[in-house]
């Protein structure tokens, strides 16, 4: 652990962090995040049918099937036969009036969403096949109202991200003002550096790696990083204060204090981050596909604070603490000199 916290390696870590954060900011400015989870561009085949017509059962004997299930099953078979993977959405058709949205449930739409990589021509052919299939079954020929292929492109809606970034920054400053009051300014300032680093590093990570995320998610991951960062940094601060208070360590130098504290606390820091990461992983693995895509990337926000609070924070803390020690010593010296002068004057 001590080797990892040498000044040489600190320069390396600081450089790595700086490069990642700067590269992340540039890439974010140029390309934004990879919001592929929002499915910004995609094709959709809508199969709309009247449930009062596509009703009852189709087939005989053991092969009897619910008519709407029969329709959707065969549509999906056609898609699979063409080697197409899709996301299915079940929609109920309605109508908008001035006073209400009326959804009677009479009309339903099965929407099949495809990647934009699939050509329009292929999907048009598939639409033709679906139409041909529905025409062969009289019940479906009457009940299927519309089979349409739409190219959908979403328009980015971004407002929450900037407000979120400002919120995290202000929240971190105020939380670390409290840390400064309780643990000293050096802990507060170093904590602020660590917290801002973690939030930026996490966001930069997603901008650089182009991991597909939901558009609102990176700011949530950055916030998680900031929360974990504050929690683990307080653990480090508690250890620093306890170490400094220990009579055995009276007059200990700032770097030795940081080293000793980190040696005593790193297991706790790793444990806290591991617990949070385990929650994210288990929740992500058990939950549904969409939830998984949203939750699992949050693990980055849980792990980055371990790196920064153990390897970067203590090194940032040292010079600030040294400066404060020096100031305190000079103040103390001044006080001693004034006291001596007063004593001398009194003696004269």
């Amino acid at each position, binding site marked *: 652990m001590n080797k990892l916290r040498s000044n040489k390696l600190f320069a390396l870590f600081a450089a790595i962090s700086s490069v990642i954060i700067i590269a992340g900011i540039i890439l974010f400015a140029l390309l934004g995040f990879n919001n592929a989870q929002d499915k910004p561009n995609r094709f959709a085949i809508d199969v709309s049918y009247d449930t009062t017509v596509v009703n009852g059962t189709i087939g005989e004997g053991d092969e009897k099937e619910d008519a709407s299930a029969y329709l959707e099953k065969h549509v999906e078979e056609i898609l699979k036969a063409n080697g197409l993977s899709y996301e299915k959405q079940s929609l109920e058709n309605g109508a908008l009036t001035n006073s209400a*949205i009326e959804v009677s449930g009479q009309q339903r739409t099965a929407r099949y969403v495809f990647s934009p990589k699939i050509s329009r021509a292929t999907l048009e052919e598939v639409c033709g096949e679906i139409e041909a299939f529905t025409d062969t079954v009289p019940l479906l020929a009457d009940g299927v109202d519309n089979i349409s292929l739409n190219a959908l492109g979403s328009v980015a809606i971004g407002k929450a991200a900037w407000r979120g970034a400002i919120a995290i920054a202000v929240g971190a400053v105020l939380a670390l003002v409290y840390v400064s009051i309780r643990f000293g300014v050096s802990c507060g300032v170093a904590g602020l550096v660590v917290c801002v680093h973690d939030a930026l590093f996490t966001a930069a990570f997603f901008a650089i790696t182009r991991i597909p995320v939901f558009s609102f998610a990176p700011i949530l991951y950055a916030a998680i990083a900031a*929360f974990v960062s504050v929690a683990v940094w307080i653990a480090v601060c508690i250890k620093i204060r306890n170490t400094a208070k220990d009579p055995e360590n009276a007059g200990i130098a700032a770097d030795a204090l940081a080293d000793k504290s980190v040696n005593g606390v790193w297991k706790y820091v790793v444990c806290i981050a591991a617990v949070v990461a385990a929650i994210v992983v288990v929740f992500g693995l058990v939950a549904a596909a969409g939830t998984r895509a949203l939750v699992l990337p949050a693990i980055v926000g849980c792990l980055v604070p371990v790196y920064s609070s153990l390897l970067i924070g203590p090194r940032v803390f040292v010079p600030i603490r040294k400066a404060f020690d020096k100031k305190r010593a000079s103040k103390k010296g001044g006080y001693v000199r004034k006291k001596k002068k007063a004593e001398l004057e009194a003696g004269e």
Partner: protein
Amino acid sequence: MSKVKSALFLTLVTIVLAGLCFMSAVSFNYGGYKGFRSILRSTQKDALLGNNLSLGGNEAGGDYEDGAGITYLGGGYSVVYYPDGVLSKDAYSDELEARRAALEAASDEDREEAEKAVTEYETGYAPYGSLYVKIGEYGAEDADAQGVAQKDGDAVKIDAAFASAFSSALSQIKSRVTELGYENSRVDVRDEYSVEIFLPSFGNSASQAGVFTALGRVGKFDLKYGASEEEAEGITFDEDKNETIHDYVKSARYVSNGGTPSVAVRFTKAGRELVKNWTADASGSTYIYFYVGDSPVIALTASQQIDQGTLYISGSYTAATAKATALAINTALNAGETDLSFSVGEVYNRGALFGNLALTLCYAAFGVLVLAMLIFFFVRYRRLGFVHLYSFLIYLLPMILLVWGIPFLHIGIETFLAVLFGAALLSVSTIVTYESARKEFAQGKTIATSVKSGYKRCFWPLFDLHIALAILSFVTYFIAVGQLAVFAFTFGLATVLSGLCTLAVGRFHWACMMSFAKDKGKFCNFKREELEDE
């Protein structure tokens, strides 16, 4: 604490917790049509996880809540808007079929006209993706020559002026949806020239319909005055002074006057003077019309002379519709010129965006994590695990009640994460106190002294941790919007409850439960340090 008092207290707490657990999780029917909905079932869910009634989705909607946020009902609605001159394939086919039917039914006298109507319609529109676009010149004076595209052989070329007007209208719509700030809302462009807006389900149907209607009103903003829409006259702009509507109207915004949602329209001096002059003889039979595009979004009855810099207009608005109307006016005032108008096409209702099983699987994941936590506590601390179980339930059940009771909170992924992180904070804090007491006990102190000094050693560090996280959470909530605000507020609540449970409730329960144990060290799975006998 004496054994009797402890037993009495624990029995009471157990009954309350069991009752709350039951109310939180179990729904049932009784007496035929009557039913009891559990707290979790009644809690609002966001568009991603709700709405699936069979699996605990929302059954009834609350009203839109003003200020801090909005109550979501799970799932949502998509509405497709088509600009003038653009039709869906379905609408085109329906109209064509109707004209053909009219042709078949037409008498010999009317046949020629009916044939012309079919031919004009067939040649007047051309397919464009899944849309049908009207062939003609955009903005042409002759109504028959108006259209949005030109035919070049088989190819269809969209008129540049129409494309520009559509782009301007789209930016108005996008700006409105962004400003509304509903979670998971999105705007999709379908086949380049129609717009699909998805909004999460909220409030009542009228409120939702009003918002969708206001979102689709695009075009220039205009102010008119008269006895009816037909007779109403607009502002006569002084061309020498290059006057525009901005010289009369500054902005519109949503305000809530004592809980009554209103649209506040701010006038310039000239605007105030104009309205004053218009309404000089007003007696209740004339109206001030606030137009966006070719239809008014507000028709205000002028029953007396109006001489106000800001006009507060209330009526049958909900907060949502007032906000959407104010946004419609504001974006129309500030957007580039467009005289395009939209008509509503398909309307779709969607259940949970992450699928019908998403919520159940989230509950399952939560259960797995709670089980893992309890196994750890019972293995490591034996019966002391019960103390943590009680602390955890006293943390979790109020959390559920708070998420249910606070209008702008709802069940979503961010809420699950915040509650789970709060539970992790509670567990880690509890472990820290237990380990601190274990160390004291190992050094030879009595269990009572160990617990006391263990808590004393941990109190301030844990207090600092909880306070710092609570500050970060609540400050983040006050500034952020959307999912982050919900996450931050829920985590803030979780932090407060975790602090209370760790530092107060847990210790009290420990004292109560331990009073029944004969071997108190064994109760906690604490062991003395073995000293080597020299």
